[in-house]
């Protein structure tokens, strides 16, 4: 009863898309494990629109987008268990089986077994402590996602005068949300000289409401004993250090933090999967398979995405590849080429490619290290250029998705480099 072909950890957009495609590819004996009380993950609290333009060619809210996938899961009779949390994943010695220890009120603590596992646990927010903001620790300081859950799911009324630190997408969305809730958002302060959120969110959530975005600014002190009373915001220099004398006091009762998302890979690390320090996600190959055979990773637990459509697409590939692994096993016969992030490229997913396992269309996803204007994205192996693509602007907040046909890789012997090249005069 506790043996499965495929266990998918996480019933958010990544897990559901992976499950649907694995089922389509012929895997019937599968199970989704979700720790929340509903499918959909973080989408359930994202009640704004803007989801699904790529996947469904229409603009949906987060819950609507989630519901479309949840409908597919139910229609295809894919089993899922809610309020079930995975405590550990372990590859059994001398076998290809993976042991998945779960806890739920129904099962208690139990170990399930699977031929393949897809890790789709998503990410979490960087908390105040990790940001090292000095000051007192009053009530009224929330990460933006926690505030979003409190406001949108629990119906809480959080505050009237708001400052937001960090211009991540959730922070931008919450700037608008708090405004619609009747609060006044005094400013969004961003440490970097550029926003870490999508352009469209800056326009629709800040500009449209007259909320100032203070680039190269950060919160340097937090005031208030029991309840938050205000924050000091200062300008920072090119090394991101606060400049003395530029501090300005903002009275506020709510401070939201939107300072980065961290893939939640405790299970992954516990399983012995190698982590890429650049993404905090697993190191994966072209099949989105980790260093442990039959353990795949996709969505925000692999690397933080900015569009859910990209999560779904990537996760569908993970589902397909897991199905292929279960049905046909691994093929190690091909040549393995490393994919290297070079000039201007912070990381790539995948970071290695086994040519024998390539699909007709292959994705290389990455983010740039800074703002680049009027440049070319180049993919090269030795002397062979696989791709050269002009781009007017590249920003760290927008993931780049390159698609390469299989035949581009024919006969390659050298590792693959991905880099940004200034366009010559």
């Amino acid at each position, binding site marked *: 009863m506790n043996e499965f072909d495929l266990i998918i950890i996480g019933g958010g957009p990544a897990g559901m898309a992976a499950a649907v495609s694995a089922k389509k590819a012929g895997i019937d004996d599968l199970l989704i494990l979700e720790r929340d009380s509903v499918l959909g993950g973080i989408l359930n609290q994202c009640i704004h629109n803007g989801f699904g333009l790529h996947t469904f060619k229409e603009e949906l809210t987060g819950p609507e987008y989630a519901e479309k996938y949840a409908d597919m899961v139910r229609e295809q009779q894919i089993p899922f268990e809610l309020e079930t949390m995975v405590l550990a994943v372990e590859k059994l010695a001398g076998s290809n089986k993976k042991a998945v220890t779960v806890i739920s009120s129904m099962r208690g603590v139990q170990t399930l077994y699977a031929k393949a596992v897809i890790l789709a646990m998503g990410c979490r927010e960087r908390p105040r*402590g990790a940001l090292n903001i000095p000051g007192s620790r009053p009530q009224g300081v929330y990460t933006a996602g926690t505030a979003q859950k409190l406001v949108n799911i*629990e119906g809480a009324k959080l505050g009237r005068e708001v400052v937001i630190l960090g211009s991540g997408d959730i922070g931008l969305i919450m700037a608008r949300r708090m405004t619609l809730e009747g609060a006044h958002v005094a400013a969004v302060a961003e440490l970097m000289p550029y926003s870490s959120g999508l352009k469209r969110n800056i326009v629709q959530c800040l500009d449209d409401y007259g909320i100032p975005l203070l680039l190269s600014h950060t919160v*340097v002190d937090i005031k208030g004993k*029991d309840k938050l009373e205000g924050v000091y915001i200062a300008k920072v220099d090119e090394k991101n250090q606060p400049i003395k004398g530029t501090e300005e006091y903002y009275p506020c009762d709510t401070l939201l933090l939107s300072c980065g998302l961290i893939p939640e890979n405790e299970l992954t690390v516990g399983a012995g999967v190698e982590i890429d320090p650049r993404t905090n996600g697993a190191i994966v190959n072209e099949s989105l398979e980790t260093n442990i055979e039959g353990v795949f990773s996709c969505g925000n637990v692999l690397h933080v995405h900015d569009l859910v459509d990209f999560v779904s697409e990537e996760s569908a590939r993970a589902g397909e590849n897991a199905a292929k692994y279960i049905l046909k096993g691994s093929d190690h016969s091909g040549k393995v080429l490393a994919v290297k992030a070079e000039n201007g490229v912070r990381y790539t997913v995948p970071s290695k490619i086994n040519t024998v396992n390539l699909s007709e269309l292959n994705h290389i996803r990455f983010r740039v290290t800074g703002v680049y204007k009027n440049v070319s994205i180049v993919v090269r192996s030795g002397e062979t250029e696989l791709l050269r693509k002009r781009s007017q602007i590249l920003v760290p907040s927008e993931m780049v998705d390159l698609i390469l046909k299989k035949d581009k890789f024919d006969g390659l012997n050298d590792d693959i480099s991905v880099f940004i090249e200034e366009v010559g005069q």
Partner: protein
Amino acid sequence: MYDVLIIGAGVVGCAAAMELSKYKLSVCVVEKESDVCEGTSKANSAIVHAGFDAKPGTLKAKLNVQGSKMMPIFAKKLDFAYKQNGAMVLCFDKADLPKLDELKQRADLNGVDGVSVITGDEARKLEPSLTDEVCGALLAETSAIVCPFEMTLAFAESALQNGAEFKLSTKVESIEKNDNGFSVSTTNGILDAKIIINAAGVYADKIHSLVSSKPMRITPRRGEYLLMDKAAGGVVSHTVFQLPTKMGKGILVTPTVHGNLLAGPTAENIDDKEDLATTKGGLDEVKAKGALSVKNIPFGKVITSFSGLRAVGDTGDFIIRESDVKGFIDAAAIESPGLSSAPAIAEYLCGIVAKLMPLEKKENYIDTRKGVTHFNSLSENEQNELIKKDPSYGKIVCRCETITEGEILDAINRPLGATTLDGVKRRTRAGMGRCQAGFCSPTTMALIAEKLGIKIEDVRKNGVYAERRQDHE
């Protein structure tokens, strides 16, 4: 009319209440905050010192050594986390080596066992992460780490189950001495008592001066700390102190009893008894000094920083005695090693009370107490039995620390239960992990709101709810 009224529900007040509840006395603890363990007791190094540091002949020395010996017994009986991990005092300059011998002599005079002076290499053999600058160390095997929240709660709950009363969210405003004892005006009405024990921490001087004309001065000394992720918890296994260096008084680096890594504290005298802010300068100092002791402390894995206030007196020693006002007992200036000494301070206070009124032991005193079940520490079989009995233990609320809904409900519903997010955190560790309550706080807030019958946005992180009386009998 109470026999004894204790002002302050920190570790000293709660330990005293527990000790006094062994006798046929009516005892009441008043506390201005909404929970026990809200002052100095909640933000400190969480060390049970061996007792080699205090000057021989002082109360600090005597009570520290006694307390340190009592602690493992209490930890077992009252179910709080305690681990004897040993400590080292590091020396970085050969010229300072004689200071280690002085500490060793103090240890001998104070009656501390298991203390020896070792070489730098011997120290590095025990603790491979120590820096090459370490040229010698004092090793104290009986030093231990403890959970100060659980410890204070354990004393409080033990006192409560033996008949002591607790009036929380109750601030003392004035005290009147009369023929029968004292009449104490609080925000929660007037309380009469024959004897008062002043265990008000950094406010002990203010409480003292409500009845006594003899001056007392308590200076809050702020100490800033950095707490690191459990992934960094194995960097050292001993508590690592420093001899003072040219950078000033040293700081410690220690594992916590729950497996995190803690570095701090700074020491800065301040005026404001409420100022728990951290500062960039303070946190930078902790990092710089920590690096003297231990190589590559992973400061990138800091999950939170905090400040605590030590209640520093003007005598250099604890002030524990009947004041110039008959029946008014000070338990003041309980700075380090106060946490370590708390059970011994309580016995000592009991001795003072015994001189003022006859003490008769209760026959039915309960000397054990069961804390919130820590699901994560149970065996798989025990976990499954618990879930079968109560399915709420099958629901994980805090992912980082694997804390179940059952534990949170227990923390809220038990006697002297939590009414704030911090209260739940101190009892269960929910929210104490690497996401710092990002995921679990909405659920925890909803559970508290339901219990208190309030709106979710009115659930407090800490502090006092207006118009909410909190009497526990």
